[in-house]
């Protein structure tokens, strides 16, 4: 059976499916942010002194920083004192098997269509589920453990593998990197930790599902992935959020450390609540994602499908330090109604013969604004560096905007940097061709857009590709006619 067929089978969803709230009593911090709150978070999580100090240091750095305003997005200023920085679902004991997990949580997963049981049984994907900042279930640990792979919640890693966390935390995204990264460093609640030992190929896709739950709870996940020499892992991150009116801040940090001859693939399907048709509500997704190809021949590939959030500010980047290392960025960003996305990547070529490839597909509909912002930086040492960038924008209607901001800095003459950009509209004749075959207009648009994004979707693992296609269709609903 071809991939196309299977994808089509799944191609059915309507309406925003993930809009509800599950009532799990939160164990939360009072609103606001100060050193006491940070101590509260750290104490709640029974953290060692060094981590508390690290957080406090980050808080002090953050306090002196200014919110950045260079992105092509506008939103009401965030009152950082009006946010709850810690909230955990109540759980009496750490569960060992799914039977011990809060049935209401399991219900939530079922609604999301990602029931852990099913995931476990059918797909062989190990899932580290994060609801409201605290990991509640981790599976497949034993199997991974046999290979020496560590895949657990961040808090657990702090307890079980402090030396690794201490060594790599902040090594790719330093505390002072940017405003939101500093904030995250101060208050991060939980997230995932993944360690692949030397020479090990992780036999399954590792995936994390995030979900915002309690009202007014900022989400500050922290993810750290370390791939030792000659190892491989494919990591999936996906998220959905319930409908609500208040804007919610989401400022995650993802750090990836790739050593010599290792390869990491990081895929994201992002579907935070985008706000309603009039631009009310929705998530502010202000994320810092960066990886370093530290060793020679290291490989890092980012693939993202961004359909959600009211505001997206996100630039997954690669520092290509090792000689012959390579970085890839494949992105689909779809915006509709009043969504704003400013997303792209940075490829920093430091080592010799480093290669990078950027494929960005922006689709804008409604009154949305969709910007690609990318930087290719070739440093002096990077003899023989190569970059290819392809940035395409597709416009639907004439009230939306697509913008491209490519920055290219070259300090080594032997490098080769290519940039191609196109802007197009969905053709009336393409839609008519579809409707003439009996396909309704909405499905026609979904079909055409999915085709347009194919090159990126092809990078995703199968089950993610299916979900991504659904999301594209969902996001563009009502954008024609």
């Amino acid at each position, binding site marked *: *059976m*071809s991939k*196309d*067929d*299977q*994808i*089509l*089978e799944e*191609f059915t969803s309507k309406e925003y499916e993930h809009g509800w709230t599950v009532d799990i009593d939160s164990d939360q911090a009072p609103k606001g942010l100060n050193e006491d709150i940070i101590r509260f978070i750290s104490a709640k999580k029974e953290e060692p002194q060094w981590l508390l100090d690290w957080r406090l240091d980050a808080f002090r750095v953050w306090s002196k920083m200014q919110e950045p305003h260079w992105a092509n997005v506008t939103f009401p200023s965030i009152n950082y004192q009006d946010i709850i920085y810690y909230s955990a679902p109540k759980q009496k004991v750490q569960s060992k098997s799914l039977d011990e997990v809060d049935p209401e949580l399991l219900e939530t997963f079922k609604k999301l269509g990602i029931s852990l049981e099913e995931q476990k049984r059918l797909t062989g994907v190990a899932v580290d589920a994060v609801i409201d900042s605290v990991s509640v279930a981790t599976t497949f640990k034993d199997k991974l453990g046999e290979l020496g792979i560590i895949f657990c919640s961040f808090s657990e890693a702090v307890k079980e593998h402090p030396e690794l966390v201490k060594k790599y935390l902040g090594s790719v995204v330093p505390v002072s990197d940017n405003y939101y990264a500093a904030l995250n460093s101060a208050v991060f609640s939980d997230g995932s930790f993944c360690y692949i030992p030397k020479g090990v190929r992780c036999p399954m896709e590792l995936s994390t599902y995030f979900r915002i739950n309690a009202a007014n709870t900022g989400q500050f996940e922290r993810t750290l992935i370390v791939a030792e020499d000659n190892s491989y892992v494919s990591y999936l991150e996906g998220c959905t959020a319930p409908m609500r009116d208040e804007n919610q801040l989401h400022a995650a940090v993802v750090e990836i450390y790739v050593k010599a001859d290792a390869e990491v693939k990081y895929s994201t399907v992002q579907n935070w609540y985008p706000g309603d048709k009039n631009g009310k509500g929705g998530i502010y997704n202000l994320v810092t994602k960066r990886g370093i190809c530290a060793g020679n021949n290291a490989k890092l590939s980012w693939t993202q499908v961004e359909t959600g959030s009211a505001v997206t500010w996100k630039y997954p980047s690669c520092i290509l330090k090792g000689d012959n290392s390579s970085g890839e960025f494949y992105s689909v960003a779809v915006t509709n109604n009043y969504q704003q996305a400013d997303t792209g990547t940075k490829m920093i070529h430091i080592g010799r013969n480093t290669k990078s490839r950027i494929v960005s597909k922006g689709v804008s509909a409604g009154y949305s604004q969709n910007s690609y912002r990318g930087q290719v930086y070739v440093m002096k040492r990077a003899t023989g560096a190569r970059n290819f960038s392809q940035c395409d924008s597709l416009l639907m209607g004439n009230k939306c905007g697509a913008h491209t901001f490519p920055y290219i800095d070259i300090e080594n003459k032997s490098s080769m940097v290519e940039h191609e950009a196109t802007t197009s509209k969905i*053709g*009336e*004749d*393409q839609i*008519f*061709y*579809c*409707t*003439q*075959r*009996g*396909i*309704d*207009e909405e*499905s026609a648009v979904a*079909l*055409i857009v*999915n*085709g*347009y*994004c*194919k*090159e990126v979707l092809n990078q995703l693992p199968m089950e993610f590709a299916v979900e991504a296609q659904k999301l594209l269709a969902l996001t563009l609903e009502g954008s024609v006619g």
Partner: protein
Amino acid sequence: MLKINNLHASIEDKQILNGINLKVKPGEVHAIMGPNGSGKSTLASVLAGREDYEVTEGQADFQGEDLLEMSPEDRARAGVFLAFQYPVEIPGVSTINFMKTALNQVREFRGQETLDAVSFLTFMKEKMKLVEIDQSLLSRSLNEGFSGGEKKRNEIFQMAMLEPKLSILDETDSGLDIDALKIVANGVNKLKKKDNATIVVTHYQRLLDYIVPDYVHVLYNGRIVKSGTKELAQELEAKGYDWIKEEADATTA
């Protein structure tokens, strides 16, 4: 099956169809010929429901329903198929994917069960044989980089898949080599049934040797100015359009 009465249509205030009258019964094959720019493709587009064209006067009735009131997709689902003169490209969408979406929407409308991937494939293989089309072509992006002939053959494949009641083939023969022409014509003939009809738009008598029409109409300046049987096509092939134009211009003058 199809009754067109005094149909007028314009685009961007330019009047193109000036009173078309045409009746097509089940089982019939009608050929429409006429000089370039006479309005053949326009007529086909208007029947298929292309929104750029404005119908300014007249009616079209399809199987007892007001065709002009229906959306393009509903016309297709009710059984109107247009093989485009210039099929558009849809990058990243394979013909297979495209047809699966289309066929299931059409089947749903017709009250038939939708096909799962396996039965779809079986069904598709059957139709592929009919028009001798290769699966590798169907896996590629729709019409992207297809040769002229491949595009036309793909149109007929889609027609076979959707099992229409009324097929309108707009210059499906142009760009086909002799062998392909025979294959396509053969496909069309095999798909012919007592209860479906075909309108063939063509410039060449050659096609009509294979798809034998019951009637031949000549379109000129947005009107059908002459109708006859297949001998008319032979006459046109021999004499060209000048005599028809003169006749028509004389009557309108």
